[in-house]
């Protein structure tokens, strides 16, 4: 039996639970915190969605004023993208990267903790804008010159700049950490082409963020300067150009949507083989398709700008690249379906979500390829057709993929099984609700309903489908409630799940459920991308841990927390009193200094 030592010896039993979590550098705890925080914001953002749908249920509704509606649709997108989907993705990355590659933690555990606490800081700054003068209300894409101080009076857009810069820093740090971990800490025998597909997607996502976040950071800094320091980067009257904002934003914004979908594609690539009980079809093709989506993703950004007067040649070039990126995506869909072919499929809740992902993402992908043509886009852009597209790929795709992962990995993380009965109810209600909400939006789009409008008139023929969509959204709400009840009941059960209840092939299933603090007693040999199945076929048995095995774990530290508080104060200072920036810098400096001198053994 192995003994794990936390650096500060046996005193840990007396530490309070709260302090343990505040100072943890354990990837599993950090992943858990990301997950809970992300899901909480998902619920809050869901409420903004319900408010929006309630306002739009009838023409000339008066549930939300125009001002509040505009804040809600802006924050709905910001919260879903930056505070819900990305953190829930980070949650699984954190928890499972070391486990899937056979490491014991990420490359930089304190940096990992820092990423979470900075994320929390940034999220609180952004969210607090609701209560501190009004949330940003210029859309999540914040097109200039509407965002200039002249047209967006008040501090909402400043919260936007500061909040997103801090959130970007958090994502950057996490991505650097994950990239180094996956590249450099794989178990012996695990070549790159034996990495689980989920790990490949994580690696691509990390590089997408590493290369795209700096671009939007520059844009946000320039916007902040325009608003506060009388520069004119985006003010046309002084020689600036609003189009520059769009280019910089979408150079980030487009890779960002692949950041949102690739993790769920990775999850689905794990789940489908497990419940079809056969290996993934075309492993290399899926890996190359994922990598090429990442690379090509940097070459399509101006398809968000087809109607801005780009010029015919640029528009056609970007149209071609955008249609082109549909090809590797299609390859993946065919490979997932082919994995099911010849399988013996067990329809657990996780599998339902994964199969629904294929269907829903296909619909979203099709509508996307439709308006990859500028001819079609000129009649779709800024209508509900695009809203339908977005939500099919993000809800039907990203969110359903996340739920598939939640039901798949719950036993591994908690030692308990979420109820399958309740799970299937929440799946079907969510599936019905989702389609009822978003499919009619295609009809609204071709009937000419613009998006980002707080109300509409009778006589345009939009009334009925809007009502249907609102009812659908309430169904989605019900499904989430069912899910929450499932979670609460499950966590009151004892933790009795075995190591590998689904008979899955990847390394995280070669340790207990939940894993011990040191993750693995012994890391199994790796001879393929499906090590546990291959080892069983080849008769390879993982040995028991030797007696008295000492596994050294990095000690807890409160320096990440201190540094994050410092960064947060700098942000708060930029939004209120500059004196706070000074205090924030001082605290951050103390955090960095303490970090660099504290012992790591």
């Amino acid at each position: 039996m192995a003994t794990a030592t936390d650096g500060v010896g046996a005193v840990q039993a007396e530490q309070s639970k709260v302090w343990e979590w505040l100072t943890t550098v354990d990837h599993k705890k950090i992943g858990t915190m990301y997950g809970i925080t992300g899901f909480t914001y998902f619920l809050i953002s869901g409420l903004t969605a319900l408010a929006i749908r309630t306002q739009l249920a009838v023409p000339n509704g008066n549930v939300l004023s125009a001002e509040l509606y505009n804040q809600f649709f802006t924050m709905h997108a910001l919260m879903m993208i930056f505070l819900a989907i990305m953190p829930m993705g980070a949650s699984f990355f954190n928890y499972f990267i070391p486990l899937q590659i056979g490491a014991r933690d990420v490359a930089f555990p304190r940096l990992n903790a820092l990423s979470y606490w900075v994320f929390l800081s940034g999220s609180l700054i952004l969210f607090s804008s609701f209560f501190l003068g009004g949330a940003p209300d210029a859309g999540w894409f914040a097109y200039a010159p509407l965002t200039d101080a002249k047209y967006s009076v008040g501090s909402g857009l400043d919260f936007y700049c500061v909040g997103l810069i801090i959130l970007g820093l958090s994502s950057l740090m996490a991505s650097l950490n994950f990239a180094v971990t996956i590249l450099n800490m794989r178990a012996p025998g695990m070549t790159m082409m034996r990495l689980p597909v989920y790990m490949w997607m994580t690696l691509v996502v990390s590089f997408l963020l590493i290369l795209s976040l700096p671009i939007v950071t520059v844009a946000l800094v320039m916007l902040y300067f325009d608003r506060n320091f009388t520069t004119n980067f985006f003010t046309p009257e002084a020689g600036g150009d609003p189009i520059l904002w769009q280019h910089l934003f979408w150079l980030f914004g487009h890779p960002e949507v692949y950041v949102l979908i690739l993790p769920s594609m990775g999850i689905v690539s794990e789940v489908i083989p497990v419940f079809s009980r056969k290996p993934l079809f075309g492993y290399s093709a899926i890996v190359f398709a994922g990598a090429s989506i990442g690379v090509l993703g940097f070459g399509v950004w101006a398809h968000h700008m087809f109607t801005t007067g780009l010029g015919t040649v640029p528009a056609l070039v970007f149209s071609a690249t955008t249609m082109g990126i549909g090809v590797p995506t299609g390859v993946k869909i065919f490979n997932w379906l082919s994995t099911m072919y010849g399988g013996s499929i067990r329809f657990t809740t996780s599998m339902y979500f994964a199969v629904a992902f294929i269907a829903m993402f296909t619909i979203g992908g099709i509508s996307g390829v439709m308006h990859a043509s500028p001819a079609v886009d000129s009649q779709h852009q800024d209508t509900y057709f695009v809203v339908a597209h977005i939500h099919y790929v993000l809800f039907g795709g990203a969110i359903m993929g996340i739920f598939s992962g939640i039901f798949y990995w719950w036993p591994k993380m908690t030692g308990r099984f979420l109820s399958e009965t309740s799970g299937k109810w929440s799946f079907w209600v969510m599936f019905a609700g989702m389609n009822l909400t978003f499919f009619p939006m295609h009809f609204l789009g071709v009937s000419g309903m613009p998006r980002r409008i707080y109300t509409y008139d009778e006589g345009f023929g939009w009334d009925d489908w809007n009502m249907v969509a609102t009812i659908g959204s309430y169904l989605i709400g019900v499904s989430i409630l069912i899910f929450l009840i499932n979670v609460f009941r499950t966590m009151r059960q004892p933790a009795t799940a075995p190591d590998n209840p689904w008979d899955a092939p990847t390394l995280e299933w070669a340790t207990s459920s939940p894993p011990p603090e040191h993750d693995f007693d012994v890391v199994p040999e790796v001879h393929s991308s499906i090590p546990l199945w291959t080892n069983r076929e080849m008769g390879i048995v993982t040995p028991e841990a030797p007696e008295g095995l000492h596994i050294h774990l990095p000690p807890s530290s409160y320096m990440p927390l201190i540094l994050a508080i410092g960064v947060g104060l700098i942000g708060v200072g930029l939004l209120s009193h500059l004196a706070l920036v000074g205090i924030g810098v001082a605290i951050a400096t103390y955090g960095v200094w303490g970090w660099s001198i504290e012992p790591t053994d």
Partner: protein
Amino acid sequence: MSAATHETEHHTSLGVDNRKLLMWIFLASECLFFGSLLSTYLIFKGESLSGPGTDIFAFEITSISTFVLLMSSLSMVLAVYGAQHGQLGLMKLMLLCTILLGLVFLGFQVYEFKTFASEGLTLSTNQFGASFYILTGFHGCHVGVGVLYLSSLLVSSVRRNGIGKETPLYIDIGGLYWHFVDIVWIVLFTVVYLIPAY
């Protein structure tokens, strides 16, 4: 420090230390950062409605500060050499030189900004001013961070136990950052100062 069993030498899949790999990938991110700032500068430098343009540059003075920064890269190379060959005295001296040269560069930059401001070019004067200042300003910040970074390495190295047996690695990583900042300056100097002058 990564979690591992009791080996002091961590095995890594790519054969590069984790921290060094981190710095390399981080520098890739920084390339995009400076690339965006440089693109903005190139787009806007001719779009000013009024106020000074590139004629405000005192090319000769900036050449000196560029030379200073280039020399600091030389001293950094020597510091790394010293660290890798156990010549800690050389390493500390060269670190100090690099820091001082970096500070001189920053001094020149502050002088330049103040001169330009007095000649009527500020952040809010025109498009050239705004994009010039944030481009070179952020570069200056990176030099400043580099100075702090190398100073902390120097301070650690003069303490009783020094940096430890990973000294060559730490100095090497510091060198990577410093050389990057220098290369960015070479690109900036060429594109911003040199090319308009000819």
